[in-house]
């Protein structure tokens, strides 16, 4: 169903970062120092990268003298749990499909309400693009709708500014149960570059529970699509 053939991403595309612990000198922290969002951590000599914070700017890889951290062109990045976004090697646990009962409800028709809560319009744009003829999201039964009352869930972008907190909560409450919530982009997952600003919350899960995290700054449309389709069990 999707994709029929592996999609071709640009040669310079920065996808999933991979950590090679063997190459990482135990007392080196060059990458940690240059990371703008503190996505990298080293505990007990083990380097981890948090995709939920990562802006995919690849500064760490550029400054790494031993190529212990590199960016691949792998676009599949979404996860059900925030912990699954923390990588310490080349592998990543991809999205598990919804449980049988929820999948029976949403698997063939999922209507989403999009809420931008401090997003910079890049995540919004690359979500919007899924509805064009290129991706044709409708053929998978997924659609963005104009009212929370018509929706099965929310797709949130942005760190959730203080000024959008109430509107987001009200929109969430207006979606009938059962519902699913998807956080798209570094801001919505962790606050992104705006983490710890007094004017923002550090991501959507500080306000409401999240069922699917799609990292990136912004995520490539294919990353978003892959996350949505895996959640609905349309690809394994």
């Amino acid at each position, binding site marked *: 169903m999707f994709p029929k053939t592996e999609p071709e991403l640009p040669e310079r595309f920065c996808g999933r970062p991979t950590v090679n612990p063997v190459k990482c000198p135990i007392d080196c922290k060059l990458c940690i120092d240059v990371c703008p969002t503190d996505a990298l951590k080293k505990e007990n000599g083990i380097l981890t990268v948090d995709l939920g914070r990562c802006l995919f700017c690849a500064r760490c890889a550029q400054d790494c003298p031993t190529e212990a951290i590199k960016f691949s062109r792998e676009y599949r990045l979404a996860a059900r749990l925030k912990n699954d976004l923390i990588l310490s090697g080349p592998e990543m646990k991809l999205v598990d499909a919804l449980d049988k009962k929820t999948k029976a409800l949403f698997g063939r028709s999922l209507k989403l309400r999009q809420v931008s809560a401090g997003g910079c319009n890049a995540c919004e744009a690359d979500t919007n693009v899924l509805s064009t003829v290129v991706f044709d999201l409708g053929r998978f039964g997924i659609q963005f709708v104009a009212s929370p009352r018509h929706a099965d869930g929310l797709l949130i972008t942005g760190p959730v500014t203080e000024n959008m907190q109430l509107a987001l909560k009200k929109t969430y409450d207006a979606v009938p149960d059962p519902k699913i919530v998807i956080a798209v982009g570094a801001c919505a997952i962790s606050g992104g570059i*705006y983490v710890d600003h007094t004017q923002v919350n550090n991501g959507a899960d500080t306000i409401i529970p999240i069922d699917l995290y799609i990292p990136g700054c912004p995520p490539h449309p294919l990353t978003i699509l892959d996350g949505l389709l895996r959640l609905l069990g349309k690809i394994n």
Partner: protein
Amino acid sequence: MQDILSVSVYNGQAIDLQEIPQLSIAQFRAAIISAVESGCRIASLFAVFSKTDKGQLYVVLAHDDTGKLYILSADVTDSYPSITTDCLQAHLFEREIAEQWAIRPVGHPCLKPVRFHQPYRDAPDIWGREKNEKILPSVMEFFQSDGDEIHEVAVGPVHAGIIEPGHFRFQCYGENVVNLEISLGFQHRGIERSLIGGPNKRTLHYMETLAGDTTVGHSSAYCHILESLAECSISPGVQTIRAIALELERLANHTGDLGALAGDVGFLPTASFCGRIRGDFLNMTALICGNRFGRGLIRPGGVAFDLKNERVWQLLEKLVRAAAKDVTVAVNLLWNNPSVMARFEKTGTVSSELCRKLGFVGVAARACGIECDTRFNFPFGTFQFAHIPVSTWHTGDVFARAYVRWLEIQRSITFIQNQIDMLHESKIEKPEIGALAPEKLAVCLVEGWRGEICHVGITDVEGHISHYKIVDPSFHNWTGLAMALREQQISDFPLCNKSFNLSYCGFDL
């Protein structure tokens, strides 16, 4: 006026803080009013407070005809006589200053909050909101019309599509809009305040995401500011790559806008085609730097990626195929379709007189026949050597704003094709710029796809950023949308809104 406006800089130049004329508030006010009367525009107007609670106003006046930028400054205390009463262009700047610094512009006709936050200094809030009170967005007095058959429509913050949040309040008489008031601030993330003390490892990312659809425009403006403060020169090859990226950003967004305008009048062929072609342009940017929005491409001191050999030919091939063929066919369907033209023409008209008075910029101004284009009036980098003709139309309506975009698409394509020939000698230097000069102010204007982007950076004695002011074109132009809606049917709001397509986050910062 000539005496006061004796000190000017060109776009991208830095000036010693001491050289900036220090005026009394009365002289400052009079100078702005007379300068705007004689053809200047207010590109930026802001307040700066030192640690000792000493306030200063700064203005950047842009003179389109000569390409000069006049910078003036004046001491300010808790209040001063409003400039807006005699110069409408100042209206939103003064509201912003009042909200940020609790300085009252006495006599301002419409003094309301802009982004709904607490003042930055320890002084009583202009609107009497308590210090620890949670300030809620769009809680303010809205303009209201009276009358038996007047009704009010409130829209937002959350909108029906995949759009950023904002609140729109319409006063309607039947189907017709008497007045539209726009209240934003929902996207406020505190960017300008986070830049103080920089630059640091986060600064560039703030620039790239302050308006994510204008990543190249804002990151270019920022890098110019740093480069002029550090007196670092940029090679022609780097400038060419930056200019190509800026025009690709324009192409993608203009194409997307024309598709969305077609969609808003229910004309699906152009909507569908342009939705795809927009992506083709974004993918050209990704060909250069890996990211569709140009993230990571522009760096202080240079660009992070070269553009040569096979990649140049790939870009050219994609450009000619997507551009010369597909976008031409898709967009020309609009002009040849009477049902589209009937909706575009004479809808949401803004007069050139109003445009000048309120200081609109970019596509919205050029659609009123006003020749204002930073690339032409304040050329910087590659645009000093390669001119793009200014695209204008005279009718000021939705059609004009659409048609100017189409003219610009064609000219940007030609520009990129010409620039590609110059790329053979492009060399990328290692992006290192050195320390910033202390106690200076630098101004940079960049013609982003929406219009004039203005950045002003000021350094302290140690060469750190002590104040940074960003003006996205949307800051000037949101009022244009409100004006365009007067005496329009409310059902034409989506179409008018799309014809401006302004940034919420670029305004809210």
